[in-house]
């Protein structure tokens, strides 16, 4: 089935449910982003120990978004959430250049998992409001995104606190659902 007809079909069936996985290192801004998506107050977040889940409506889709804690000791549990993922959103702190290599390696490991084969990846280049935020090319290089060949990927500059770029990212997600 072509993507367009797939989209049409999905659109005619309102509340088509999709599972979105939010991953990324600790402090990247995943929980802030999730709260922003759900239009909740974002002034306070604490490091996530387990997971948060929220349902967001977008473009006639019902997106069930799973936000998993990113601290090092929690990362081994990420794999418990891989099953049935439609789109992976990988969040990075665009100002934290020191950790680009670390986050790139984590992403590489995730993408080699069978359960996420072919799943499109949106890189939310978060915290663009910081004066030292890296541009897309530097992020692509730092995370070695060019080594990803088996699926589509997209960098979306955003700021979870101001909300800038967040909607554009969701639009991309809805347009690039895993072809089933």
């Amino acid at each position, binding site marked *: 089935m*072509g*993507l*367009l007809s797939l989209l049409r079909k999905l659109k005619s069936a309102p509340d088509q449910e999709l599972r979105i996985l939010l991953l990324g290192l600790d402090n990247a801004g995943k929980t802030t982003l999730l709260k922003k998506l759900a239009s909740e107050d974002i002034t306070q977040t604490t490091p996530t120990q387990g997971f948060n889940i929220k349902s967001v409506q977008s473009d006639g889709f019902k997106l069930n978004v799973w936000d998993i804690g990113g601290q090092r000791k929690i990362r081994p549990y990420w794999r418990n959430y891989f099953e049935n993922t439609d789109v992976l959103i990988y969040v990075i702190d665009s100002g934290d250049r020191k950790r680009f*290599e*670390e986050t*790139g*390696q984590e992403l590489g490991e995730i993408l080699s998992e069978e359960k996420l084969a072919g799943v499109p990846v949106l*890189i939310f280049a978060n915290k663009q409001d910081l004066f030292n935020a890296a*541009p*897309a*090319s530097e992020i*692509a*290089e730092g995370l*070695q*995104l*060019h*080594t*990803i*060949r088996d*699926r*589509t*990927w*997209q*960098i*979306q*500059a955003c700021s979870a606190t101001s909300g800038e770029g967040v909607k*554009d990212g969701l*639009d*991309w997600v809805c*347009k690039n659902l895993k072809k089933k």
Partner: protein
Amino acid sequence: MSSLLSKMGNCLLLLGLKKEKRPVTLLLVGLDNAGKTTAAKGIVGEPMEDVAPTVGFAPENLEYRGCEVTIYDLGGGSKIRPVWTKYFSEIHGVIFVVDSSDASRLEECKEVLVKLLSDKKIAGKPILVLANKQDVEGAMDEVDVVEGLGIEAVVNKYKCPTRVETCTATTTRSTNKPDKPIADGFRWLIDTIVVHYAVINKRVVKDMERERNHQKKEMEERKERLLRLRLERERAEKR
């Protein structure tokens, strides 16, 4: 009997080998907003009503005239353009899309084109130039685009077989067929690659091998750096 079976087996094997499709990888680039993604969706027969700017990598696949074609649709914005080079070693040919309705960006477009074709990994490979958005009033015609971008000089200098097509990538949305000039150009590109396949593919195989080794080395260095960082961190945590 067994020899007959094995002969049949050989026969099937031969047929199977014969059917094997040639891999052809194309690079689809040009400035942002030129219409690359729109054109790619038309080529693979999945027209899109509205496209978002690509800031990344959007591969498309299709089978075409005995070839297994992969199109690397890359973002054209200046912030993502530096990643293009990462894909050069793999490609057999280039589709370069130009927004003919935007004369103000001709200079930028020319610089990008020259830089692209002068690259050692690209020079000599076939290139299809799509002078897109002909439906826009006042759009530059073929001659304007060829002259404006200095295409003649640059492709001659770098010995790239070239074809220029004026087109409207969006027509596919209403007709559900790819725009004819795009289809013609695409056929020319694939045919040209097929004719020169042995030479081009030899380059590709060699360049990819080099790239792989380079990448492997980089990955090992990276792993080592990360390991060192981890050990340092663990030592600090113990204290």
